[in-house]
Structures are given as structure tokens and as C-alpha cells.
């Protein structure tokens, strides 16, 4: 049947329909293209930028800390690390998939470098949960072999990169640890104002940056921290190779800081304090330079880089000797007899005594019903002012202080810097305390009594000073009356290289001493060392005339016999270059515990710094082991003198 036959013909309308259908399909494609390329283009451009641009914030290289002779106290060394960019290894879906992926990558890299796996899955998970903008540093401090192996196979590890991390090192280990402080990982949120530094709002990744956490590292963080805070935008290809550095800015260098410190003196100071709890501060009396500032025991700041381990931290924190605590600036102690020159200068200044005024010391002093004893129970006899210093006679001091009046002594104590911070550039500095009537009424609900004046006269009672205050005061005695501000930092080199000298600066409201008054006190101190019956004779040195004053302050429960033993000294006598305050906690007495240490410290200094011929190092007298009483470590001065 003809109508059932397939009549071959060209069906024009069907062709037209096909044509229109095809055009409609192409129209759909075009619509989709419009949607992608015009409507959503920004979104795709953002995604493109995210995957091909890896902008990484590179921390700058922290400035170095040098001693006055350029010895490196804090420096940096490069550490080769393999870091993983977790965002790039992210898998969709459950976090566990990403963790597995990262672990697999780690495993393969570990195999290639022939290194143990550095991280556990929970570490990866933790990092993912906390700080994806930080690359996960898997290996640190890789040696050359491992680095070479990694580079050889780098293409096989997308999302992993070899990074060089500047690591803070303290080449002198424990030396001046309290002063230098230490660094720790910087808080991302607390990074310095990025916008002001020309940095973009946000990087994709942040390499760990170090920030000062204590000591000078913290105080001078703004100087040491590299301002330029390097920025680098890297275009990476699919394998993670750096393809192009779109715009890079080399990480900057922080400013170098040159301290007034002399590493040789610092080392000597730490050596004489070895095994003890105590502090030693050496000042240049000509300008207030802090030549040494030691506190014992100490710690190794290298343990804090890049992060302190829990074990070490706990040990440091719970050690009853408190190694993290800077006794030199933060410890408040009764100065004991080292305070006596203040009392005498006050009395001289007030005209209450003269250099030739004599008092008789029978070994005790009765004030009403109370009897104050001289340390030498059989007394010193009739002595003048210079001898009173030489023998450290308490009775002479009671007479002088009562004659001058407490206000004069308190004023003189404040004038030499007690009771206020020295503003040395360190945290946790304490001001100490110069007790007066107002203080006593507030703290003890009692008025000032003559007994208080007697205690004050010999540096006991509520009087508290810090070792650095005492050192500054020793320097003032040494130079004849100029109280300096301690100068810890001599020079700050900015990142550009311009050096900024810090000028020596006298402290405000220093003392005004008559030259003849100081002379007699200084001579008393000279005699204390250089006369065979002087209280500080164990500090005597050949070739150099040392002047010093010992101090022994009882503290804690009365009669427990716990003593802070002191010596302040300056030398050479005629033109002093060094003024020292030295403290040993729980020593026997200033003359037997502190003086030999002072001698050794000065001998070491004169030998190494000035090239003088000095006696060899002798074994230091041992100190009985302290009764453990950590609560009382920062001294609480006794109510009554011995």
C-alpha cells in the first residue's frame, strides 16, 4: 500500500524543527555562559585567586641583641621546615577525610625524607580546628640530606612546602636570661597594625611569628620586631610549585639593640651567684650603664623557642627557687647595713653630726625600755663617723638618725632612689618601700616612733629596696653624688640602619651632697675593705682599691636566723668605673657570704675587662642550704633588728 511505504523525501519542516531545536540548545549554552562569565564572574575570580595565589605572611627577622662589645646575646638562625597548607589539602565532607588526606601526605613525605612521622592525626585535627591560616609545620630543623630529598620530590607533594623559619637563639644560653627574656609564638590577632604597614588586610597563610614574651624581648618588641613584616604573594601551580612570585616583599630586619651590658662582667656576676639565690647588678658610675644584671637561679631562654614544653614550663614554674623571677629588679629586700651611708649622709646634711662627731658604742643602745643591740656585743668604743662605717657600728647610727630626725633620713633615702622605680626598661620592677609616718599610720595603724627611726637607720624595719636600686645608689656614692637612671640599652639601630644613641640621663630629684660629706663616707667604705679590721675585708683586692659596705638583714620569723646578705662596692676608689650591689639570699653574713663573692666578681672584671693582674679564682665559701620556705622568698623584713 502506497501510504504505508516509506516515501523517501526531504521533510523540510522536520529539518527546520531540528535546526530550531539545535539553536535552542545553543541558546541554553549561551545563557549558562552569561551566568558564569558575567553574572557570577566575581565569585569565580575569587575562587581562582584563592587557589592560584597563596599569599603568605613571612615574619621579619627579629633584631639582634648585642652587648656593649658586640657579643651576640640574642640572634637568629635559619631552620628548614616542611609545612603543609591544610586549606589546599582540604577534602569536602567530614573533617576526617581531610585529616586522612593530610596524614597520607605526611606519610609519603616522611618516607621520602626518611624521617619519622612528626604528627598524630589528632594534632592535625587540632590544627584544622584552631588555626588553618597557619601552615602546619610538620618538620623543623631539617638537615641537608632531608632537605635535598624533599626538594627532589617536591612536585609529588601538593600543599607541602619547604619554608625557612628564622629561629631565635640565645648563643650565651643562660647568660642574662632574666634581662633578655624570651620569645614565644605571636598571637595572630595581636600582630602589629597591618594596614599601617602597607600589608593587605589578610593573608591566606601566616608563618609563625615570634613575639617577645618577657624581659627586653618584650619591652623592646617594637624595635626588635621587623616592621616590614615581609609579605610574599606566590602563584602556585597545581602541584604546589612556586610558579611566580606576583609581588613579593622581602621580610624586613628588626632593629638591632646594643645593650650597655658587658657579657664578661655578666658572666662573672652569674658565676659568683652559681648555686645560690641572689642577684648582682654592676653599674658604671660615670653614666649609669648597667654592665651586668644577674639574678640566680636562671633558665635557658632557648627552651622557649619556638614554644616551651610543658615539662620544662612546669619545672620552672614550680621550682621553689623561682628561676623565672628576676630578683635584680623585682625582688624587694631589707638593705641592712648597706643603708648606713644614707643615714649618715642625711645626718651630715642636716648638720646633726659632723665628720669628727664621736659617739660611744657600748654594744647596745637603750631607747626607753627597748634595747637595740650593736652587732658587736662588746661594743666599738668611742668612734667617729668614718670608723662607724668601717666597723658598721649600729649604735653610732642610732645616735645620728635620732639627731637628724626620721624625715631627714627618709628624704635622703628617697633622694638616692629608694621607694621609686628606677625605670630600667624591664617589666615587673618593684619600687621598694621607704617607711614614714603616713605609711605607718596607714599600714600599721600606729604613729612613727623613735624605734622605727633606729630600725630605719640601720636599713631594717619596713624598709625595702631592690638590688638595682642599691646598685644605683652605690654608683651615686662612687661618683660623689650623681644618681643616674640605669641605662640598659645604649643604642637602638632602626631597621633602616640609622642608629639611635640613648643618652645617659640623671634621675630626677637626685641627692645634693656636700663634697666633704661624701668624701668621709667614701673613705669609711674604703677602710671597711682595706683595713684588716674592716667589716668588708674579704673583698680586698691587690692593685685596685675597693670601697664597700656590707649588709646583713634578718628577715622572716624573728629568731629563725634567715638573713639577706649584701655588699655594695665601687672600685677603683679614686676614679670608680664599677659600682656593684650583690645579694645572696639566706647567706651567713654580708662580710662572710657577700664579700668574697664581690671580691671574685671584681677580680674577674678587672682581669678580663681592664687587663689587671688579679689573684686566681678561689673556691667561694659555701652557704648552708636554705630551709625551704618558698612563700617567704621575696623578703619580708623583720620588725626588729638583730
Amino acid at each position, binding site marked *: 500500500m502506497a*501510504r*504505508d*511505504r*516509506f*516515501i*523517501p*523525501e*526531504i*521533510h*523540510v519542516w*522536520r*529539518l527546520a*524543527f*531540528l*535546526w530550531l531545536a*539545535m*539553536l535552542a*540548545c*545553543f541558546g*541554553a*549554552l*549561551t545563557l*549558562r*555562559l*552569561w551566568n*558564569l*562569565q*558575567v553574572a*557570577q*564572574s566575581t*565569585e*569565580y*575570580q575569587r*575562587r*581562582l585567586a584563592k*587557589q*592560584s595565589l597563596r599569599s603568605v605572611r613571612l615574619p621579619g627577622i627579629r633584631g639582634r641583641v648585642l652587648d656593649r662589645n658586640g657579643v651576640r646575646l640574642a640572634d637568629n638562625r635559619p631552620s628548614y621546615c616542611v609545612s603543609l597548607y591544610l586549606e589546599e589539602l582540604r*577534602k*569536602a*565532607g567530614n573533617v576526617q577525610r581531610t585529616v586522612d588526606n593530610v596524614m597520607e601526605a605526611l606519610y609519603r613525605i616522611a618516607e621520602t625524607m626518611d624521617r619519622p612521622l612528626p604528627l598524630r592525626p589528632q594534632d592535625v585535627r587540632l590544627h584544622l580546628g584552631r588555626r588553618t591560616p597557619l601552615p602546619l609545620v610538620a618538620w623543623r630543623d631539617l638537615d641537608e640530606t632531608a632537605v635535598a630529598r624533599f626538594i627532589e620530590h617536591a612536585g609529588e607533594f601538593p600543599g607541602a612546602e619547604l619554608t625557612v623559619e628564622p629561629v631565635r637563639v640565645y648563643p650565651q644560653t643562660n647568660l642574662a636570661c632574666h634581662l633578655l627574656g624570651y620569645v614565644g609564638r605571636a598571637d595572630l590577632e595581636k600582630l602589629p597594625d597591618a594596614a599601617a604597614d602597607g600589608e593587605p588586610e589578610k593573608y591566606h597563610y601566616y608563618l609563625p611569628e615570634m613575639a617577645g614574651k618577657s624581659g627586653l624581648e618584650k619591652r623592646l618588641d617594637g624595635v626588635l620586631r621587623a616592621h616590614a613584616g615581609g609579605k610574599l604573594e606566590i*602563584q*602556585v*601551580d*597545581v*602541584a604546589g610549585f612556586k*610558579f611566580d612570585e606576583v609581588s613579593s616583599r622581602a621580610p624586613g630586619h628588626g632593629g638591632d639593640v646594643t645593650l650597655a651590658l658587658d657579657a664578661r662582667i655578666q658572666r662573672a656576676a652569674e658565676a659568683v651567684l652559681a648555686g645560690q639565690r641572689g642577684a648582682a647588678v654592676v653599674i658604671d658610675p660615670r653614666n649609669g650603664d648597667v654592665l651586668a644584671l644577674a639574678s640566680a637561679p636562671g633558665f635557658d631562654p632557648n627552651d622557649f623557642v619556638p614554644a616551651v614544653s610543658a615539662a620544662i614550663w612546669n619545672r620552672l614554674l614550680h621550682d621553689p627557687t623561682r628561676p623565672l623571677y628576676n630578683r635584680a629588679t623585682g625582688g624587694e629586700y631589707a638593705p641592712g647595713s648597706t643603708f648606713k651611708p644614707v643615714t649618715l649622709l642625711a645626718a651630715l646634711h642636716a648638720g646633726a653630726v659632723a665628720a669628727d662627731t664621736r659617739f660611744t658604742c657600748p654594744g647596745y643602745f637603750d631607747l626607753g625600755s627597748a634595747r637595740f643591740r650593736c652587732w658587736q656585743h662588746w661594743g666599738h668604743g668611742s668612734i667617729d663617723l668614718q670608723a662607724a662605717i668601717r666597723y658598721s657600728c649600729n649604735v653610732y647610727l642610732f645616735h645620728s638618725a635620732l639627731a637628724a630626725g626620721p624625715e631627714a633620713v627618709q628624704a635622703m633615702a628617697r633622694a638616692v632612689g629608694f621607694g621609686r622605680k628606677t625605670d630600667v626598661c624591664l617589666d615587673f620592677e618593684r619600687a621598694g618601700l621607704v617607711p614614714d609616718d603616713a605609711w605607718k599610720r596607714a599600714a600599721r595603724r600606729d604613729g612613727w616612733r623613735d624605734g622605727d627611726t633606729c630600725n630605719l637607720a640601720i636599713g631594717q624595719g619596713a624598709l625595702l629596696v631592690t638590688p638595682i636600686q642599691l646598685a644605683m645608689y652605690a654608683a651615686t656614692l662612687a661618683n660623689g653624688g650623681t644618681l643616674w637612671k640605669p641605662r640598659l640599652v645604649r643604642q637602638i639601630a632602626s631597621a633602616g640602619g640609622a642608629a639611635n644613641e640613648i643618652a645617659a640621663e640623671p634621675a630626677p630629684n637626685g641627692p645634693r651632697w656636700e663634697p666633704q660629706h661624701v668624701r668621709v663616707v667614701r673613705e669609711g667604705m674604703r677602710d671597711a675593705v682595706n683595713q684588716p679590721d674592716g667589716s668588708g675585708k674579704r673583698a680586698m683586692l691587690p692593685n685596685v682599691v675597693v670601697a664597700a659596705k656590707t649588709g646583713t638583714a634578718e628577715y622572716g620569723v624573728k629568731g629563725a636566723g634567715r638573713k639577706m646578705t649584701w655588699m655594695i662596692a665601687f672600685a677603683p676608689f679614686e676614679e670608680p668605673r664599677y659600682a656593684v650591689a650583690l645579694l645572696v639570699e639566706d647567706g651567713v653574713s654580708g662580710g662572710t657570704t657577700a664579700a668574697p663573692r664581690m671580691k671574685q666578681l671584681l677580680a674577674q672584671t678587672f682581669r678580663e675587662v681592664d687587663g689587671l693582674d688579679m689573684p686566681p679564682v678561689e673556691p667561694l665559701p659555701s652557704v648552708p642550704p636554705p630551709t625551704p620556705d618558698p612563700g617567704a622568698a621575696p623578703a619580708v623584713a623583720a620588725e626588729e633588728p638583730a
Partner: protein
Amino acid sequence: MNKRVQTWVRFLTAQDGLAILLAAGLLGAGLTFIYSASWRGEETGIVGAWFSKQIWWAALGAAVALALAATDYKVWIRHAGWLYLASLALLALVFVPGIGRKVYGAYRWLVILGVPVQPSEFAKVSTVLLLARVLASPVLQRRSFGTVLLALGLMALPFGLILEEPDLGTAMVLVPTTLCMLFAAGCALRYLIGLGLLGAGGIAVALSPLAKLFLDDYQHERIATFLDPSRDPLGSGWNALQSAIAVGSGGFSGKGFLNGTQNVLGFLPRTVSPTDFIFPVIAEETGFIGASVLLLAFAALLTCYLRTAWTAQDPAGSLLATGIAGLLFCHVFVNVGMTIGLLPITGLPLPFVSSGGSFMVSTLAGFGLVQSVHVRRMRREV
């Protein structure tokens, strides 16, 4: 004038000039962007010399096209059966160890005289030729379901063999092409609609877990990833995602020649950017303007093909042109569709533009066949 010369002049003037212009333009665009997609790779020695190879293949294809255009297509229609059998034999040869070559886990290549060729490309054209011959045959029952079955059966043999290689994309192209030809041949609409519904059902099944019974894992994964490219951004979803990023980030006017970062940095894998993913390269570097001009060129070329089908001398020529148009359409639509996330990634190249020897020759052979039909058209132009 010499009669021989007269014949040539007539032959040349009878060509579809617009189609030639369009094809040449597309070839030029292809070469240009293959260069863009591969220069970085060549510099680093990762990828072979795509660009120079492509020039040779385009030249060979042009020669084949010229030869086919000069020959009467009826010769090829007449011998379509033999060509079809030969192509089936070649497809089968792919699986013979030692002759077939395995690339990326698929037997798609035969090595002839040291040159790898894809028999599936030859099979596509020969199947269209045979279908044109069969569907234009006056002995067939009109509107009978048998006709549909016969056409589908003829298509099913190469389809099955190509699917077995496996080359899902190329195999799938045969189905809509056959349907186009059936439709143009005047097949009853109810069968075609029925087939369409069946096809939709098939796709639905393919997406269901049931599909694992008969689809390879990679095929199932691709279809599933199509639905959600972020499902596996580093695995099979990678290309889809990177391709969409390339296209999208191109914006309205593109990033400029050789400036496409997706392509240059290898986020679009260098092994596929000159072949199946040449479109994102173009779209990234020339933006919406370039990409839509490219689509417009393809639409115009399709229009030329269908005009040839309309003006053809006989139904066989018309169906031949329709079939070739169907192939062209399927390739363009599936290729562009997959790179912009409308269709699953199937690994189908873009005609005239993508790099690839056999495919270039088969595309140009198809073009030559259509030209042959066009040259011998009936004079009924509007």
C-alpha cells in the same frame, strides 16, 4: 575552455563558501588556543608538541575533505555497507592484544604505520553513511517500528563496541545522531517520543545505585560528580570545578591571549586542556565575547549543514548532511555543556578546535561529505 578546467571551476564555485569560511575560522581558533594551552607545557617539556602535530592533522583533514567533496557522495552511500563492516572490524581490532593500544586504561587506539588512530571516529562517519543509505531506501516500511529498530540496531553495534573500549562519550554521540536522522527521515513521532522517554528513564536509572550493576565505577562516579562537583574536588570533580572556575573567571572580555591562569598554571590539567577542555581555555582568555562568538560560529555552521540537507539532491544526501550535522551538534553541545557544568564530564572533544588527529580527520571528512552534497544540490535556493 578545457572541459576538465570547467568542471573544476564549477565545482569550486558550487562550494558552500560560508561553511568553508566558518570551518577555516574554527580551525584557526583551534590552533591559536591549542598553542595557548600547550606552550607552557612544551616549554617545560611536559606535553608533546600539540601545536605542530595539530597543523599536520588539520592539513591531512583538509585534503580528505577536499577529496570527499570532489567525489560524489552517492559513491560512499552505495558502499556504506562495506565501510560500516570495515569500521566494525577496526573497532574489534582494538581489543586484539598487540594491535590495540591501551591509553589511560582504555582500548581506543590502533597503531597504523606508527600513527595512533581511533577507529571509533571512522565508525561514527560510516554509521551515518549507512543510516543515510538505509533510511533513504524506498523499500522500507513507512512509519513502521521495524524501521526504528533497524536503525537502532545498526547504531547499536558500533555503540556497543565503542562503549566496550570504553569511550562513553563517543558512544553516546551516536544515539542522538541516529534519532536526528530518524526524525529527519520522517519516522513516526510516537516512536521517537517513546524513545525519548525511554532515554530519560535510562538516565534516571544510570543515576540511581542500580546503575552500578552495568556502569563502570568511573562512569557512575562521573555522573554522580556531575550532580555535585564539590563531592570530590581533587578527584573526578577536579576538572569540572577547574573548568567552571576558568570559564567564570574569564569574565565578560577575558584575560587576554596566553594570560589564562587556570590553563597556564595547570589547574586545567595540561593533558586535557588542548583536547577536551579547549573551550575553557578560550572562554578564560577571550571571555564571554569570545566564547559566544565561538558558539555563534558553530550555530552558523550547523545552519549551513542543515541548509545543505534541505537543498540536497536526494533524501540520502539530505540524511547524510543531517547526520553529520547531528554529530557536530552533539559534540559541540556535550563538550561545551560539560565544561560549563551543564553536562557530566564525558571526554568528548570540540570539533575543528580540539587537538586530536583522528577526530580532526573525521570532522573534516564529515565536512567534506556535506560539501559533496552541497555541490550536487538541487537548485531551489530562496
